């Protein structure tokens, strides 16, 4: 015992990370990348390569050359590892650039048209190529929200029911339902619009927000169903067993035990569905078209929406109308972002709760032993 070192005998020992990349190395690496960036810029200036894409190409080539050159002294394994690292990072860089470019260019091109009244005015008395300080996108936001609300009201119950069917009832058609939901996710949006046009619009005799909402619902249903299923699958079987072991019927277990555990998760499912369909354009071009003024009646004829507003502004093609299209895009992206952040926050909470549920079930089972 005497020669065994005890924790209590020790002076406080600092945790170390001998494997961590040293700050000096990290700084050198960053410095080297900066140098390469400058070098690439130089190459871009003197060679036929031009613009951002030329610079990116030069940067990648410089980087790769350096890696190969310095890797020569390494073994085959390390050399390959280093080269792959550069290749993978470059591919990832190329994959991420378009989204960054979209966010940045939307903000840069769209901010000009944003003024305090933009969200509250419509285009009834404003021409598409009027100065940007007139008119607004209010009517389109209202129309989009109306149609999304219709779609949500229609899909949420159906989506949750099919989620419950797949995880709780597990009937004979489980495979079939899952397959159909998957196939529906692949229905092209324009086909959904065409279907609703030929059924709802033609039988009602007019374009309407209701038709637009139903078209969006067709697109939203698979998203909501699938997310609901995923969320319900997170509920540990222990919880269900606990419900049954208490003598509860299946419906009580489902409604009182399973659903409350994943309430936040289901909300997330709905919000993600909304974020996905609110930017859908093609089905609305076939079902609800566009208007220039505020309109609250979903069955009173054509109803404007953000996507069709942007589309119409862009197709009009004048300087100011295209600027309006970008401003509309800022609003649309902001709404998507808002729903997205909301969904993530709720989703994080629901995951924690599901985990807490697991812990609770485990504790209960230990306690009863």
């Amino acid at each position: 015992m005497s020669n065994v070192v005890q924790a209590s005998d020790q002076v406080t020992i600092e945790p170390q990370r001998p494997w961590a990349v040293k700050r000096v190395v990290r700084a050198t690496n960053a410095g080297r990348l900066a140098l390469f960036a400058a070098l690439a810029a130089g190459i871009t200036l003197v060679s036929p390569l031009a613009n951002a894409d030329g610079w990116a190409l030069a940067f990648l080539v410089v980087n790769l050359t350096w890696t190969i050159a310095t890797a020569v002294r390494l073994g085959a394994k390390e050399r390959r590892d280093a080269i792959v690292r550069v290749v993978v990072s470059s591919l990832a860089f190329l994959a991420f650039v378009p989204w960054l470019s979209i966010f940045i260019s939307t903000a840069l091109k769209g901010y000009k048209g944003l003024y305090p009244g933009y969200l509250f005015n419509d285009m009834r008395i404003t021409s598409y190529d009027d100065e940007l300080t007139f008119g607004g996108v209010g009517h389109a936001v209202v129309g989009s929200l109306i149609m999304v609300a219709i779609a949500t009201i229609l899909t949420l119950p159906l989506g949750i029911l099919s989620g419950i069917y797949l995880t709780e009832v597990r009937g004979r058609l489980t495979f079939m339902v899952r397959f159909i939901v998957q196939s529906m996710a692949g229905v092209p949006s324009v086909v959904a619009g065409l279907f609703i046009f030929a059924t709802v619009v033609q039988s009602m005799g007019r374009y309407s927000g209701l038709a637009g909402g139903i078209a969006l619902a067709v697109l939203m249903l698979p998203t909501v169903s699938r997310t609901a299923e995923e969320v319900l699958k997170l509920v540990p079987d222990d919880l269900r067993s606990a419900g049954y072991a208490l003598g509860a019927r299946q419906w009580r277990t489902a409604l009182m035990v399973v659903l409350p555990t994943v309430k936040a998760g289901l909300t997330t499912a709905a919000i993600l569905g909304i974020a996905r369909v609110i930017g859908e354009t093609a089905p609305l071009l076939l079902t609800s078209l566009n208007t220039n003024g505020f309109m609250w009646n979903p069955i009173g004829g054509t109803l404007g929406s953000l996507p069709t507003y942007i589309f119409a502004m862009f197709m009009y093609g004048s300087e100011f109308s295209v600027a309006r299209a970008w401003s509309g895009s800022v609003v649309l992206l902001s709404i998507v972002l808002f729903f997205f952040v909301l969904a993530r926050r709720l989703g994080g909470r629901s995951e924690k709760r599901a985990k807490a549920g697991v812990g609770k079930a485990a504790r209960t089972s230990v306690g009863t032993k």
Partner: protein
Amino acid sequence: MTTVETPTPREMTVIYSRADRIFRGIVTAGALTSLLLLGLIASFLIFRSAGTFREFGINFITGTEWFSDGFREVGDESRADNSVFSIGPMIVGSLVVATIAMLFAIPLSIGGALYIEFYAPRSIYRILVAMLDLAAAIPSLIFGLWGIEIFTSFGVRWATFLNDRLGFIPIFSVEFENFGRSPFVAGCVLASLVVPITTSVAREVYSRTPRDLIDTCYALGGSKWGAIRSVVMPYGRSGVIAGAMLGLGRALGETVAIYLMLNLVFTYSYEILDSTGGNVASMIALKFGEATDKEISALIASGLVLFVITLIVNMIASNIVQRTTPRA
């Protein structure tokens, strides 16, 4: 001698209470709604397009002419209806643009997914995953807007370069040096639209690689690339293929982005840098505005063709997933 009788297994029947039966009924009905809806869409498309298929037959798929003979009153027999509808170049065009998009999207997605899972610093991992999910939710309309306003100048430069250097290869030759709104440029934009979708599927699949298999590679003295190549990639292959099929389905059905990015021309064209192309989905949106009744029926027939194509792609994808998902 007595024979040992094998006992007959006793049936265990579950009898649900009435409340449970009602509950199961409601839930089943709800679940079947999507079944019903898909059936309705399919049968409706078939029903409404039957006339078109009867009139034009196989020519609807292979022909190269879309001509609407104008509006007429019902029962107006004063002049013959000379409308001809066929979508051959549009189908081929859809496939061409989608293929170009996937050629770019697949390597980018695999690279992006591997980077996020295995190379990115831990401090930005969560941000990258959130960004990826968000990018998958960017409306395609905004991709189209970005494509035509921002990307086209880059795309045209690349197209010019390809045409200069590789113009002797038939697909890179052009009739007129006008590269904007060509399948190549549209395909690039479509690729950037598909990449978030395929990347997030690939990332998800890669992240599920059993940790102890990766650890084993390291324990054998393997490098990161060694672990990726011998464990992560084989393990994730089917998932990545399914993700690519999902992206392909999306690329085939995409409407507005292509509508903004492509000149629709009713001739077969394999010159991907030439500004002539085709796409079924955008053609539907384009012709819909001033369509006659008969034309609507033809558009619905086009929709049916598109629907069948994407359904096949999706079925292949879900088949791959079903076949290769490891059973828990």
